[in-house]
C-alpha cells in the first residue's frame, strides 16, 4: 500500500510541476448556492447592486437561454455539462482593509508574487490603500508613475479585485474599471454598447454569460485619446466547481487607440471548470483596438482528467470608417478551447487582423479560428494562424471570410499552418471562404507538416536535447505571430511555448 501511495504522491508532484500555474489560493469566499435559476440571476444582480434595467436584461437573457441548445458542431468531445452542478458566483470575502502589506493574508500575496504583479500594485490589489491614495512606494520608485506602465484589472473567480492606475487613466479621460462599477457609474455607455456586438441570444454560451456574467473589464477611450499605457486584465478561476463568466466591453471612440492585454490561468483541479466569457470591442471612426490574449488555463493532467472548458465569444465591430481591430492570441491552456475572435468590418476602409498561436498537448482539444465579415467598402483583413498539435491532442482551425454584396474592394489574406508532433495527434483546417462581390480578392493558403528532421538534427548536433530543439523550432514557426504581441508578453510567451510542449517528444 505504502509503495502505491508513494508512487501516487510522486506522480502528483510531477504533474504539479508540469502546470506551473497550478497553485490555489485559499481565501474565504462568498458563494451563491449551486445551480442556476432565476433566483441565482437575481442574487448575482443584487450582490452587485445593479439597477433594475440590468437585472431585466439578465432575466431576459436567462429566459432565452432556457430555450437554447448546446452547440455540437465543433470538433470537440466532452461529457455533457451539468449546468445545475456549478457555482455561478464566488467572491472573495471582503473585510476591513489591512493597514499595510504585512497584515495581508500571506497566501494572497504569494499568489500575486507568482503572477509577477509589482509590489505597488499588490498594495492596491490587497486593499492596503485605495486607488487615489498616494503610496509610499511611489517615492521609492523615483518616477512619477513608478516602473510598471501597465494598468491591471484582476478578476478573481467572478469578481474584479481591483483596478490599478485608475487615477492616471482618468486624467486622460480613459475609463478603465470593473464592469459592475461601469453599470453603476456609466449606465448610458453600458446601455448603449452592451450586447450591441454580441447580441443577448447570439449563441448558447454567450446567452448564458449574459444572464450570469459576474464581472469583467470596461474600457472607454474618449475621442482622440491615445491610451497612455497598456491595459491589462488578469483572470483567474480559484474556487472549486465555479464557472467564470466575465464580460469585457471596450469602446474606442473616434480617433482613439488602445492596446489591451488579457492573461488567464486557473489552479489545478480534477474536475472540469467552465469558463464562458464574452468580449465585445467597438471601434468608431479612425479608432484602433489591439487585443492580445495569453490563455494558459489548466489543461488537465496527462490523462486528460480535469482542465478548463474555455467556451468564449469574442467579437469586434469596426463600426466607424478607417477603424482597425487586431486580435492576437496565444492559446496554450484549457482542456477544451472553443473560441473565434471575429471582426465585423462595417466601416469603409476598416481593417481586421487575427494572429493566433494555438498549442495543444496531452489530451487538449482546440477548435479555434476567426471570422472576418466584410461589409464596408475597401475593407481588408489578414489572418495568420499557427497550430501546433502534440501528444494525443486535436487542433482545429475553423474560420470564415466573407464579403457582402456591397463590400467592393474587400481584401483578405489568410495563412494557416499546422505542425504535428507525434503520430497520436490530429490537425484540421476548416476554412469557409464566401465571396459575394466580384471585386473582392481573397487568398487563402494552408499547410500541414511535421517538424523537419533536418532542422531537428541540426539543432541536436549542436548539443541541444530533443525537447529544446523542438521548442526552438516551434518558436521559429510561430515567430510571425509572437512579433505581434506587446513587448510585455513576448518573452513570457516564448517560455510558455517551451513549457507547453514538455513531454511531447521522446
Amino acid at each position: 500500500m505504502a509503495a502505491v501511495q508513494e508512487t501516487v504522491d510522486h506522480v502528483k508532484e510531477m504533474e504539479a510541476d508540469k502546470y506551473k500555474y497550478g497553485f490555489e489560493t485559499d481565501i474565504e469566499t462568498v458563494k451563491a448556492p449551486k445551480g442556476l435559476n432565476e433566483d441565482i440571476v437575481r442574487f448575482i444582480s443584487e450582490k452587485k447592486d445593479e439597477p433594475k434595467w440590468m437585472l431585466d436584461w439578465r432575466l431576459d437573457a436567462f429566459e432565452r437561454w432556457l430555450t437554447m441548445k448546446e452547440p455540437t458542431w465543433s470538433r470537440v468531445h466532452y461529457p455533457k455539462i451539468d449546468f445545475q452542478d456549478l457555482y455561478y458566483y464566488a467572491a472573495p470575502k471582503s473585510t476591513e482593509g489591512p493597514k499595510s502589506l504585512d497584515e495581508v493574508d500571506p497566501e494572497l500575496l504569494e499568489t500575486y508574487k507568482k503572477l509577477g504583479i509589482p509590489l505597488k500594485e499588490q498594495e492596491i490589489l490587497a486593499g492596503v490603500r485605495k486607488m487615489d491614495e498616494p503610496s509610499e512606494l511611489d517615492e521609492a520608485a523615483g518616477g512619477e508613475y513608478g516602473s510598471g506602465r501597465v494598468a491591471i484589472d484582476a478578476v478573481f473567480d467572478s469578481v474584479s479585485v481591483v483596478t490599478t492606475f485608475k487615477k492616471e487613466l482618468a486624467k486622460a479621460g480613459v475609463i478603465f474599471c470593473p464592469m459592475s462599477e461601469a453599470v453603476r457609474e456609466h449606465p448610458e455607455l453600458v446601455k448603449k454598447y452592451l450586447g450591441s456586438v454580441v447580441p443577448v441570444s447570439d449563441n448558447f454560451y454567450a446567452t448564458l454569460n449574459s444572464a450570469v456574467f459576474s464581472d469583467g473589464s470596461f474600457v472607454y477611450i474618449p475621442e482622440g485619446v491615445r491610451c497612455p499605457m497598456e491595459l491589462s486584465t488578469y483572470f483567474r478561476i480559484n474556487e472549486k466547481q465555479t464557472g467564470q463568466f466575465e464580460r469585457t466591453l471596450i469602446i474606442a471612440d473616434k480617433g482613439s487607440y488602445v492596446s489591451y492585454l488579457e492573461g488567464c490561468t486557473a489552479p489545478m483541479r480534477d474536475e472540469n471548470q467552465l469558463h464562458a466569457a464574452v468580449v465585445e470591442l467597438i471601434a468608431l471612426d479612425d479608432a484602433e483596438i489591439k487585443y492580445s490574449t495569453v490563455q494558459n488555463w489548466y489543461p488537465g493532467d496527462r490523462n486528460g482528467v480535469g482542465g478548463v472548458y474555455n467556451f468564449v465569444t469574442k467579437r469586434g465591430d469596426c463600426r466607424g470608417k478607417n477603424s482597425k481591430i487586431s486580435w492576437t492570441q496565444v492559446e496554450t491552456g484549457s482542456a477544451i478551447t472553443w473560441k473565434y475572435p471575429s471582426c465585423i468590418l462595417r466601416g469603409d476602409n476598416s481593417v481586421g487582423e487575427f494572429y493566433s498561436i494555438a498549442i495543444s498537448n496531452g489530451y487538449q482539444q482546440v477548435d479555434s479560428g476567426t471570422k472576418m465579415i466584410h461589409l464596408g467598402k475597401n475593407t481588408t483583413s489578414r489572418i495568420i494562424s499557427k497550430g501546433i498539435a502534440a501528444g494525443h491532442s486535436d487542433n482545429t482551425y475553423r474560420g470564415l471570410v466573407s464579403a457582402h454584396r456591397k463590400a467592393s474592394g474587400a481584401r483578405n489574406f489568410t495563412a494557416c499552418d499546422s505542425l504535428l508532433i507525434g503520430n497520436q495527434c490530429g490537425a484540421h483546417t476548416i476554412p469557409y471562404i464566401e465571396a459575394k462581390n466580384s471585386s473582392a480578392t481573397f487568398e487563402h493558403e494552408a499547410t500541414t507538416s511535421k517538424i523537419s528532421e533536418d532542422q531537428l538534427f541540426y539543432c541536436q548536433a549542436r548539443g541541444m536535447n530533443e525537447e529544446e530543439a523542438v521548442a526552438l523550432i516551434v518558436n521559429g514557426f510561430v515567430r510571425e505571430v509572437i512579433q505581434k504581441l506587446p513587448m510585455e508578453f513576448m518573452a513570457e510567451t516564448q517560455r510558455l511555448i517551451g513549457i507547453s510542449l514538455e513531454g511531447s517528444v521522446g
Partner: protein
Amino acid sequence: MSVEVLKTKAEQGLADQYTAARSGLPGAGNGWAEGLREAAWETYSSAGLPHRRIEEWKYTDLRALLRDAYPPAPALAEALTGEDVLAALGPVLAGLDCHRLVIVNGQFRLELSDAGGLEGKGEVFSLGDALGDPSHWLKQTLAQVNPPLNDTVVALNTALMTGGVAMRIADKAELGKPVHIVHMLTSGEAMSVTTRNVVVVGAGAKVTLLESYVSHGSAPAQRNAVTELVAGDGSQVHHIKFQNENPETAHLTSWMTRLGADVSYDAFQFSLGAAIARNQIFVAFAGEGSRSHISGAVLARGRQHNDTTMVVDHGVPGCESREFNKLVLDGSARGIVQCKAIVRKDAQKTDGHQMARALMLSDGAEFDSKPELEIFADDVVCGHGSTSGQVDAEQMFYLRARGIPEPQAKALLVAAFIGEVIEKVENESMREAFLKLTESWLAGEGEGG
C-alpha cells in the same frame, strides 16, 4: 419533444414515386437487388433531401432548390438515331474516335452504341438487365465502392436507379480508344432520370473513360447519376466528365472511386450546362503508392449554380493526391468548391495538395470555397489554397495598351486562366474539344448574364 419533419413537395413526390415504381424497377423479384434498394430507401428517407443544415450541403440546399419531383422518364423513349446522339453531343465531341456507349433517359441502348473492339479486353452490359440476374462480381461491387456516409443523394440513386453501364476491363488490357459513355436526356416533358454505372478496371490495365452528360431538347429534367469505379493494382485510369445539359436541368452526379496499389488515376470534370449542378467525387486510397490527380473547370453564367464537392480519403501510407479547380463566374452565377482531404492515422508519407481558383467577371457572381484538411498522421505534407478575384487590371492594361479591344482582351485572359486546367487532359482530341468549347462559351459571353 420529437418534431416530425414535414416533407417538401419534392420529397413527397419522390416517396410516391418509390411506392409506385418499386415493383417495376429493374431487379424486382431478385432478393439481393430488392434488399439493396430497400436499405438505400431507408437511409434516404430517414433524412430526406439534403439541406443547408447538413454540413456537406451547406451551399446547395436541395430542399429549397428542387421545388418538385419530376416523374421518372418513360421506360423506353421514342425512336432515336445515331445522328440524334451526335447532334446532342455537338460538333466538337461528335467526331471523337471512341467506343461509344449510349444511355438514353436512364436506359442503356445497345443499338445506338458501338462497343466493337472491346472483345477480349473486357465485358460491357446493361446494368438494368444485370440486376435481375447479377453476376458474382457485380454483387461484390455495386453500392460498395467507397460509399459516402449518410449521403442521401447517393442512397436515392441506389433506391431508384433504372440502368446504366456495367463494365469490367480485363487485367493488363490496354484500350486503344477511350470508352465514351454518353448520358443523354431527350423528352418533350419534364422528367427525372436516375442512372448508375459500375466500372471495374483490372490490375495493370490502361483505360480512358469519358462520361458526357448532354440534352436533346430543352425540357426540364432532374438527373441523379452515380459512377462507381474500382481501379485494380497498377492500373492507369483517365476519367473525364463533360457536362453540357440544357439550362433547365438539375444535375447531380457522384463518382465513387476506390484505388488499389500503385494506381495512377487522373480525373477531369468540365462543367458548362445545367441550372443546378452538383459534382461529387469521393476517392479512397486502398493500396499504397497510388496517385490521384483531380482537376475541374467550371464555366457558369446567368443564374447557374455549380457545386463541386470532393472527399479524398487517405487510408493507407505513401499516396499522393492533387485537386485543382478553376471557375469562371459571370452574371449571377454561383460557384462552390468544397474539397476535403482526410489523412488517417496510418497514412504516413501522404502528400496532398488542393487548390481552387475563381475568376469573377461580374458583380452578381458568388464564389464559396471550403478547402478542408483532416489530418491524423504526422509525417505528411499537406496544403491547400483558394483564391478569388477579378481579371487582373495590370494584365488587362497591358493588352489594351497593345491595341486589343476590351472584350477580346478579357476573353484572352479568361481563356488563359481556364486553359491552365484544361491542359491537364491527356487525350489530345478531348483537350482540343474542351478548349474549343471554352472559346465558343466566351464568344457567347453576356448572353446569359
